[in-house]
């Protein structure tokens, strides 16, 4: 495990930060929201593809650049800094991981190249209830000749509103299975959601959707380990994104503390605010270490990835929650206005906090992993 970036990783980081700043500023998310686009941004997707960002976790043989999780984390952090709505988490991270870790040679050949090029956007269709709970999957996959019939409903699938290929988790043979389901599969209906963060999502209804056996990842009922591994990567990637958002919101707040005057003083000279700023900084430092350790643990194949993933996601949730609230509070009235960015941070924060388990979920999991 290491916290120090290689030269290549640093370059990737710098590129991603500059790209997000120049091409995907918060104002772009505001525009998407005002156009009621539900987070669909074809132009951004094309530019990300041009930069090769969809292939950072894909081997060179399949058209990727094989940067691994540490590289992916730099890009996620960069997009978090501008709250950008992109298909990166669902496609470059989750899609590439599902196929890379669990796909057969034929499945890899069929999909990895398309993911790396940005042609295919994937979306993980896992949760069904109001809370993240990978153990509570009711969607069924029933054997039917050479394939399966899938029935059930999926709630709040990120990128589901535009994904080309769904990675659907369903119950088969008393266990969980993962299926590749194209968006135009008959029996699948997709309802686009207008979400709090303006990133959008979709609810799915599966009514006896026929899936060929060749579109199942691994063996029937044996996908739990794969799903855990993919979810842990997703949680770590999301934590990196949240680190970016929290850092940006903190810098924005600090900037305001150093410019706004009241009582003839910069408000940043009031100790009541100084201490809270120092505490936010402390939390950010701990989050940065947690995310760095988790990213690097995946690439070095450590056996404590699950623990570090829960650590990173829980610390990210607590830290971003705190900073997104303080960001509004320390801006005073202007922080409450739609014209200001603070509200966008707050709204994206609440969605990212909940996705793939909030602080409570991960503390519970951490306790379990530590035997209590």
């Amino acid at each position: 495990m290491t916290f120090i970036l290689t030269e290549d990783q640093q370059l990737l980081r710098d590129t991603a930060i500059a790209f997000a700043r120049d091409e995907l500023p918060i104002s772009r998310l505001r525009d998407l929201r005002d156009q009621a686009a539900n987070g669909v941004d074809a132009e951004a997707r094309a530019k990300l593809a041009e930069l090769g960002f969809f292939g950072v976790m894909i081997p060179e043989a399949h058209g990727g650049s094989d940067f691994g999780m540490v590289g992916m984390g730099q890009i996620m952090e960069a997009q978090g800094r501008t709250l950008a709505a992109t298909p990166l988490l669902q496609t470059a991270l989750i899609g590439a991981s599902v196929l890379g870790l669990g796909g057969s040679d034929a499945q890899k050949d069929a999909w990895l190249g398309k993911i790396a090029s940005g042609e295919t956007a994937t979306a993980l269709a896992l949760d069904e209830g109001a809370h993240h709970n990978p153990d509570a999957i009711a969607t069924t996959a029933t054997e039917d000749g050479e394939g399966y019939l899938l029935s059930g409903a999926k709630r709040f699938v990120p990128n589901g509103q535009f994904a080309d290929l769904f990675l659907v988790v369903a119950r088969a043979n008393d266990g969980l299975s993962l299926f590749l389901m194209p968006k135009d599969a008959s029996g699948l209906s997709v309802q686009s959601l207008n979400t709090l963060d303006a990133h959008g999502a979709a609810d799915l209804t599966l009514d006896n959707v026929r899936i060929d056996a060749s579109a199942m990842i691994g063996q029937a009922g044996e996908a739990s380990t794969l799903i855990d591994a993919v979810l842990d990567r997703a949680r770590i990637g999301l934590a990196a994104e949240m680190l970016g958002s929290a850092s940006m919101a903190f810098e924005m707040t600090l900037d305001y503390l150093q410019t706004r005057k009241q009582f003839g003083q910069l408000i940043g000279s009031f100790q009541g605010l100084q201490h809270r700023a120092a505490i936010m900084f402390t939390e950010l430092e701990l989050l940065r270490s947690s995310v760095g350790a988790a990213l690097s643990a995946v690439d070095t194949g450590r056996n404590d990835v699950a623990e570090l993933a829960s650590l990173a996601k829980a610390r990210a949730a607590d830290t971003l929650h705190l900073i997104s609230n303080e960001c509004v509070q320390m801006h005073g009235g202007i922080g409450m206005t739609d014209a200001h960015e603070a509200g966008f941070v707050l709204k994206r924060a609440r969605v990212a906090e909940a996705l793939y388990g909030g602080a409570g979920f991960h503390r519970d999991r951490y306790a379990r992993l530590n035997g209590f």
Partner: protein
Amino acid sequence: MADGAAHDTFRIEARNWLEENCPPSMRTPMSDADVIWGGKGQVFHNPEAKLWLERMGEKGWTAPEWPREYGGGGLSRGEAAVLQQELGRIKARPPLFSFGLWMFGPALLEFGSEEQKKRFLPDIVMGRTRWCQGYSEPGAGSDLADLQTKCEDKGDHYLINGQKVWTSYANHADWIFCLVRTDTSVKHGGISFILFDMKSEGVETRPILLISGSSPFCETFFTDVKVPKDQLVGEVNGGWTIAKRLLQFERQSISASGFGASTAGAGALGPHDIAKAKIGVNSDGALADGDLRGRIAKHLMYNKAFGLTVRRSTETAKAGGDIGPTTSILKYCGAKLNQDKTELVVEALGADGLGWSGDGFDKDELDATRAMLRAKGNSIEGGTSEVNLNVIAKRVLGLREHQ
């Protein structure tokens, strides 16, 4: 990475040496009573502790990064990190706890004269001289620079009159590094940094009893104490710079040592182990008190993130990066963590954590209770948490002083 191969060689060397020289009883968990502070008054109940200190001292490995010419180990930062890992690997006890090693020595290395370094540092490395810190006064705590202990130039010597307070282990120390006022017309610019023997005539110490029942610190009085002139460090009236630098070393050492977390009572058990034993678990193995379980998990995760941050800061320093901002948070976090931990342990112990002395309670339980009380000082000693937050806000975040 360039010195990776060299480190491999050093690692093997260190490992072999430790294997041969670290006595068996020095590889077992220690309690407060086992701590070796050195100095003339040190009594060794365990002869292996003496041997371990002598061997490590001669090797210079009690002060691994100090130059060889002053008795140190002369190791690079990378080698010192490897040595730490190897010591950790065999769970070796620190051979010496010492304000000389942690704070005074590093400051003297930067500000002392050649003669002072040669005179004082080797005895610190060997644990022969025990130092105490004469900073705080009754009227000068957080506002340390307001100190009033008077130091007059009497031609061939200095004469010191005044009082210090909260002087940890002043009654056991051989020497004191002390802040004194050499000019009353300016605040920060009138302070000097001076060293003297605690057996000098006119030095008196009175132990103060703490809420934890122990007396680790004293009121210290100076009445016409004569100090030779070559024992003033740096320039006359130039002591404040040295004082501040030393405080940085103090805060680093306090946070790095995890506030003696190794001797926090209740053995090496974490709050979750104790809670499971004392409260019990549900059928799914989860601690039966769900609220306590959540708070313990939160604490352990914070602790883990803290450990990773210490590690990140070490790695960043090794790679030549700026670690100032990161280390500034460690004292504040470390204090909070140790307080949370010791509180959770006492809460998990229930009635068994509410004894004070005598029969009916295990030694570990009594230690845990005292550790919780002692930990309250973590956010006061070495600069209070509030003062730490002030420092982060001003020095790291660049926020202005209130006008």
